[in-house]
């Protein structure tokens, strides 16, 4: 599979995210970019990956990308569909999920996620949709992957509101709260990949996509971002990966296709 001619940063991001998933994963899928990445993984190297959406659809295999978390396609292609209280109690809180895949409006240097408000909670400048399943996805899945475009607006030193707890103020903050899961272990953006420092849990750039320069990454990050001792270059999408992704997007409802 030779490298693809050219691809958009968004395509590179989705491909890089898809590669992080394995065939054995049981994945709790957020809508939008996470859904695109998880289904790309299923349609390429991880055909047996188990995808679960918060609408209660378990082991679903959508032919097209769903627009909403509960599109008919998800139920029609699922192994089974359970009530929403059962999904969150037995399947998520029960600890059966290996990877929770989330998007974010804001993410900070310690991987805390904000999808609630920009500004103060009482008088927000922007009212965002809110939590949905994310707070418990972030605390109950064995690990959390985040996929989000990297800009100074999204990558902030500290989120305005902690909707989903990542590594808090860093270090062993999760353990101190009695949270036993790993939290955000991977953040994939349109520029590269960040992972938490093993000690401080600060997000550090470990890989950059082809053609991306450090200055660019620094300029698009709201804090003085650190780079790993060795920063790899993300292998470009293979022709196959790109073809499958473009097919998937093309056959999906326009509104459901990631821009």
């Amino acid at each position, binding site marked *: 599979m030779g490298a693809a001619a050219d691809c958009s940063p968004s395509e590179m991001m989705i491909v890089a995210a898809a590669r992080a998933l394995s065939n054995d994963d049981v994945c709790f899928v957020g809508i939008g970019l996470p859904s695109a990445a998880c289904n790309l993984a299923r349609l390429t190297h991880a055909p047996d990956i188990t995808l679960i959406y918060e609408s209660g659809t378990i082991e679903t295999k959508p032919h097209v990308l769903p*627009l909403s978390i509960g599109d008919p396609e998800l139920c029609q292609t699922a192994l089974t*569909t359970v009530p929403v*209280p059962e999904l969150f109690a037995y399947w998520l809180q029960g600890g059966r999920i290996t990877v929770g895949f989330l998007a974010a409006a804001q993410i900070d240097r310690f991987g805390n996620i904000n999808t609630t408000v920009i500004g103060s909670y009482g008088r927000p400048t922007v009212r965002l*949709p809110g939590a949905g*399943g994310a707070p418990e996805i972030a605390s109950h899945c064995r690990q959390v992957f985040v996929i989000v475009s990297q800009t100074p607006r999204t990558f902030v030193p500290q989120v305005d509101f902690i909707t989903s707890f990542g590594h808090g103020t860093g270090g062993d903050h999760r353990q101190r709260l009695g949270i036993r899961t790993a939290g955000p272990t991977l953040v994939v953006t349109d520029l590269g990949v960040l992972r938490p420092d093993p000690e401080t849990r600060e997000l550090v750039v470990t890989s950059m996509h082809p053609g991306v320069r450090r200055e660019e990454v620094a300029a698009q990050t709201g804090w003085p971002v650190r780079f790993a001792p060795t920063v790899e270059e993300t292998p470009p999408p293979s022709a196959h990966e790109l073809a499958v992704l473009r097919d998937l997007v093309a056959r999906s*409802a326009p509104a459901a296709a990631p821009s």
Partner: protein
Amino acid sequence: MKAAERIRRKARFLSLSEAVAEYVRDGDVVAMEGFTHLIPFAAGHEVIRQGKRDLTLVRMTPDLIYDQLIGMGCARKLIFSWGGNPGVGSLHRLRDAVEHGWPRPLDLEEHSHAGMAQAYAAGAAGLPCAILRGYLGTDLARVNPNVRFIDCPFTGARLAAIPALRPDVAVIHAQRADRRGHVLIEGIVGVQKEVVLAASRAVVTVEEIVDDLRASGPNAVVLPSWTVDAIVEAPGGARPSYAHGYYGRDNAFYAAWDGISRDREAFLAWMREHVLRSGGGVRVPGSA
């Protein structure tokens, strides 16, 4: 929310306007549920036409129907866990109410899906509260006084507690009811059983009323007649959401709503044209 009187007579078959007039009252805590699937749009539109006011709206995912109710000034408070246009973006009427108080200020009580789903389950189960391992480290617990923490009496583990949700009235849409008033729901069943069992009153709109419920197997999701107050035949009553086995989701309309709802006048014009037309004498926001 009053304590629910849980034991009901058999369901009555009413028209939509009769059911909403009798069971949805100004000032009520109203939960119109349906998780993406089976959203009771027809019933919500009738609530708007009847000009219900001061409602506390409860719903995990407000979706377009609550955007419309809020934009038409029916609500004083919203209890929710995710308030967006799924896969599209913001609910602009919800944002306008929260950010600018138009057409009136809107109080928010905000949870996670996990918390709200268990709060409905606790309401159905006659418990005063739900417990879950949740909200740890989040600011939701800071801004919502209805999120508290208790210690497990056996392990000492810290558990979040939320008050049970016990709406005054639940409104859902289902595939069908039989002539005895038993209701069948299938596909994505969300929290519909829980909200009906948790509420003091329950109105169910259905695609069709049939002789044979055609339940799929012995464990199908069925609400017995004696758990429902009113059943209304409302074919297409979930559009533009969908009804598994009847019609699909109108994703194009969900995308189009983004444009319709951004502008107050465009929104009001759309509501006049598509919702109010069939009814009369409704207070339109700003028209007072």
